[in-house]
């Protein structure tokens, strides 16, 4: 199946009366105004609903706002907030603020990348973990900090990484 067929098919699944709930459609309905300034709020809302921006969601946003898809994609890839892969079962955020840097967050990030074999912004093949670098979590007192799906882990070191990941793997049903 080539990319276009895939897009079409996915579009039909979501557009039509398939069993998949049309979360993107619901978001679009919440934005009746169609000015270009609605683009970023719309993408934020779509990501909020779906966890990431799929190609199909972005093209539907483009159609909704009568914008060329290239513009939507160009905007989406400009900002840190938007991700293009589904989040993993556990979403790992590594703080790269100044305080965390001074306490060694670079080595921590490297250890996570090695252990998960993904780059920031990506999700592991098994969908278990996704990795993200954030500017600051706001817990500078606990630096360096890693947040896993909202749970904060302070004072992290590279050698604690495998244990941390295993703990979450075990917690997965």
């Amino acid at each position, binding site marked *: 199946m080539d990319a276009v067929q895939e897009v079409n098919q996915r579009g039909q699944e979501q557009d039509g009366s398939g069993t998949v709930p049309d979360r993107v459609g619901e978001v679009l309905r919440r934005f009746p105004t169609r000015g270009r300034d609605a683009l970023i709020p719309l993408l934020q809302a779509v990501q909020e609903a779906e966890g990431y921006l799929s190609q199909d969601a972005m093209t539907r946003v483009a159609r909704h706002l009568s914008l060329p898809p290239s513009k939507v994609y160009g905007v989406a890839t400009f900002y840190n*907030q938007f991700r293009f892969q589904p989040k993993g079962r556990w979403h790992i955020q590594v703080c790269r603020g100044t305080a965390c840097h001074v306490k060694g967050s670079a080595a921590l990030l490297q250890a996570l990348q090695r252990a998960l074999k993904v780059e920031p912004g990506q999700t592991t093949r098994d969908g278990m973990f996704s990795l993200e670098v954030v500017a600051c979590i706001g817990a*500078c007192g606990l630096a360096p900090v890693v947040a896993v799906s909202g749970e904060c882990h302070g004072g992290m070191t590279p050698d604690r990484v495998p244990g941390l990941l295993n703990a979450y793997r075990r917690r997965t049903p």
Partner: protein
Amino acid sequence: MNGSLEEWGNGISWGDVRAWLAGTLPAESPKGPRLEGALRELRREDVVRPTIFVGTGTCGLGAGADRTLQAIRALLAERGIDGDVVEVGCIGLCAAEPMVDVQLPGRSRISFGPVLEADVPAVIGAALDGIPPGDRALYQFAAPEGIQSWEGIPRQSEHPFFRSQLRFVLRDCGVIHPESLREALARGTWATYARVIRTRTPAEVCDEVARSGLRGRGGGGFPTGTKWKAALEAPGDQKYLVCNADEGDPGAFMDRAVVEGDPHRLLEGIAIAAYAIGARKAYVYIRAEYPLAVARLHRAIDQARELGVIGHDVLGHGVDLDVMVKQGAGAFVCGEETALLHSIEGRRGMPRPRPPYPATRGLWGRPTVINNVETLANLPMLLQNGAEAFAAVGTSGSKGTKVFALSGKVVRTGLVEVAMGTPLREVVFDIGGGIPGGHSLKAVQIGGPSGGCIPASHMDTPVDYESLKGVGAMMGSGGLVVMDETTCMVDLAKFFMDFIQRESCGKCIPCREGTRRMLEILQRITRSRRNETGTDTLQRFQGVMYLERLGGVIQDTSLCGLGQSAPNPVLSTLRWFREEYEEHIFDRKCRAGVCTELLQYAIDADRCTGCTRCAKACPTGAILGAPRAPHYIVPDKCIGCGTCRVECRIGAVTVA
């Protein structure tokens, strides 16, 4: 009324408050004194019930304030105490988070911190019993007349963190409940705006601000009054005010604290600025990473709209103002005016050349003023006390106060506000309490990725726009990171360069390509010989030379302020710490021990017993030696991981 406003009781309605603000409440109305009384009560000079204040800003929550809060509620319930629990914003003493204040009827308010969940019974319980543990108390608030202060607990004004501060912008942060409009009103918020639109023309307001000497607090330091006048005089029916709350510097959180702790002060500032430039629409562009601030801002806007201080025909004076919130999607460059405007318009946040300046051609081509949070939050007090009072504080070129986020290797990290012109030394040593752990000060980094380093020898530099520029730094938005001798200046420059090159918008060539090359040079300097390939060695030597040349061209030619200031962290460290760069390059040494690749591990043959622990642990097999004979590390194989040093029980592994 849809319920975002609290009730007043005592026969007072929000309509009465509106009339009071508009100056139309009849003088003989009994409601005037009743309202005054209610407001006094809300100022909590005294309380009728024990009242506990918990700091639940983002930093407080990060330190565990939510669990502390639950424990306090449980404690009150358990003991059957009829007390009030008030959530307040951040007072700025981050080192002591989570912070809890206790105020008993007739007694002054005491602050404790840190108060973790487990400390609640011992600290708060005792305080409620009237025997506050003096060793856990930080300070007590000033006691108004008729209120008894506590023995043996220092006044807030005597506490070293607050003694040298002058808190205008942060006056009510951490003191009031940020979600209560009544408390904000009790502290005088919105009264200035109401008076301004009743008695002053926009041009007069612009003049007053110009006379005050207020300069933009976002980094550039452009005179606010001048910017406003340009927008006021620019032809056009539709004008916009934009509040820049897209605080992107790593290590800066001043704006977040203001929005979380005192959102109505910011809104009042926005309303004043909008009135002064003739804007009927204002946007607050705020980071999406600040969910609490966004929520509080939304709530404050709803409240202000219901009260009628924003909206159509404000207080019957024919002024219209709509305030909208736009959440930034994460791009440091959107702190730049034109990039921010593009972002609001739903475009890629790439700056455009100026002129035309936004004051004449901004949002959707209309005249637009962009001010940052701190600038706007200065306005209510500025206009309340007048330009002269404002200008009385500060230096000849820099008036008023400046808020800094003090962090790094300093005893009391936190949010501080000092008069312009205060020497750095006072900020670091008096307010910040100096360097912890017996270390000594090496430098402070001010202004974030756009700023620069100031060495310990220049600690008498006053914090004002010109002086900081003079030593190669800049005010920036107010990040102030303290560093001791365990910080490597090359590594620090590398950190900021990495940040900048990731955050560069990619539009202009010098910034996009140049910052990337500068980062690569710094990476080469800090790389071990083992990882060198090709012409790396030669390029290390050329490094410093090219860093300066590249930095100069990037400063000279970049399109926007981000690019023009991008080389600052490198150039300023190079200016003050050149010998440290040279050590990295020529001696391959990092004196701070931060650049791990440059560390040389060796085994002291005299001490080594040949236990083989290190050789077994070495991940690359770099350690040779027969059992019970001294071991040896093969330098070419060693990756500098330090495992051997951890493994060795007799400290025979040395590092240099």
